[in-house]
């Protein structure tokens, strides 16, 4: 496996730290005029999403992490694993555990493409698209004519997510949702 030295560290580079694959967020070179040089590095732990701040002596190196980000369509779940398929025509399938899915579990919809992070060929993270269209499976009946006034109510979507929607939304309607904030955007 290749090694990267501190002077090769740049945003997005994938390296191993404390046994976990990490993505470099920021690398700052710190050096007193006539003294030992250091690099102050921020890394995102790809397993936990947490950002670490570490200091390295300049010239130290970290092993590269075999991490790939790929687009894959969601297929189905057997209750234990969630299955995704490559969209490059290879039909290659990958299974994700619940831990890798995290919050994305509530944004799953068949045939939608997700960004899958693979480490050593294992799925470690599943990221939904920023916007997704989902059907309302349960909500209080819509209030006719109330299209302008504020006010909202909870609605359960086909993926299981519960979002706040305007009062005029009815069961069976398809909505556009921002997965980053979990907020209703518009009718689809």
């Amino acid at each position: 496996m290749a090694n990267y030295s501190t002077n090769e560290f740049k945003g997005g580079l994938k390296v191993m730290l404390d046994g976990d694959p990490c993505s470099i967020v920021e690398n700052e070179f710190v050096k007193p005029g006539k003294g030992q040089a250091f690099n102050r590095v921020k890394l995102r732990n790809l397993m936990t999403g947490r950002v670490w701040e570490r200091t390295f002596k300049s010239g130290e190196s970290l092993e590269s992490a075999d991490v790939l980000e790929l687009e894959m369509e969601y297929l189905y779940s057997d209750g234990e694993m969630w299955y995704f398929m490559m969209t490059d025509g290879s039909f290659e399938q990958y299974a994700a555990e619940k831990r890798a899915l995290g919050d994305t579990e509530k944004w799953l919809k068949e045939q939608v493409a997700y960004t899958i992070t693979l480490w050593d060929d294992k799925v470690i993270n599943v990221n939904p698209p920023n916007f997704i269209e989902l059907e309302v499976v349960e909500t209080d009946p819509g209030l006719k004519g109330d299209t302008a006034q504020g006010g909202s109510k909870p609605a359960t979507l086909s993926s299981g997510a519960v979002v706040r929607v305007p009062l005029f939304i009815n069961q069976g309607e398809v909505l556009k949702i921002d997965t980053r904030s979990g907020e209703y955007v518009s009718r689809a």
Partner: protein
Amino acid sequence: MATDWHPTAEIATLRERARLIAALRAFFAERDVLEVETPVLSYGGSTDVHLASLSTQATTPAGRETLWLQTSPEFHMKRLLAAGSGPIFQLARSFRDGEVGRRHNIEFTMLEWYRPGFSLAELISECDALIRQLLPQDPGPLRQRRYRQLFREALGVDPFTATLDELQRLASKHGGLDMANSPHDDCLDLLMSLVIEPTLGRDGVDVVVDYPASQAALARRHRDPQDGEWVAARFEIYLAGLELANGYDELIDANEQRSRFSADNAQRRALGRPEVDIDERLLAALAAGMPPGCGVALGLDRLLQLALGKERVAEVMAFATPRC
């Protein structure tokens, strides 16, 4: 379309840069300090353990030879002083391998000047006056801060008497890395860079003085009159958390200088770093006699960065690494 041919500084910034450099030349002209130009290339290099020098091959009348690119114009300028130049300054392109970041660039401009007969206090005051002339607003008062006192206040440790073990533990804790095998000065450097430096020059100009004798570089050493410890007769000026200038009461003893160069190279060998050819002509100049006095090197790009309110040195350079 590729845009990496663009300058890293805006054209308007380059105009400001030129205006400030003209003001700087006027500052020295008023004080009768002679502007000089010395070579970037030299047969001797900087042995400083923590500076990585670039070198190149050139064909000279003597054949194919290795020449070093200067890490600062210090050695050539000291030879001029020994030859009787009197006070001199230079805007010198200098090179330090591997140094690229928000406040570093491999190739940069060093403003260096020498004042025969000046005390450190006189040079500090001149340096402060120059900084104030170039900054658009008043940076606040000039404050003298003792190295030892800074460590006591920020870290509760005396850098002169603390055990190596204690410093290694502190450095590991504040750096978030293992410093258990690091030498004394590396631990101090880390704590200085990561803990103390960011707090300096926040509402005034901070001058750090009385460095440990082990960090004297090319400065004289003397006993601190207050507590009797050996200290280096040098200062550093900090503004807005940035190290701007490094000044010395210059070492003028050729034998002492030779032994420091040799000690640097011995340390380089121990660390597996390449040795650097000692500048014999500098040593010969010192042996012939360089007038006592003080000198200072100021990172011009950093001062311009602060004067022009920029985030990175690259923003005040036409084509910073790696756009060069």
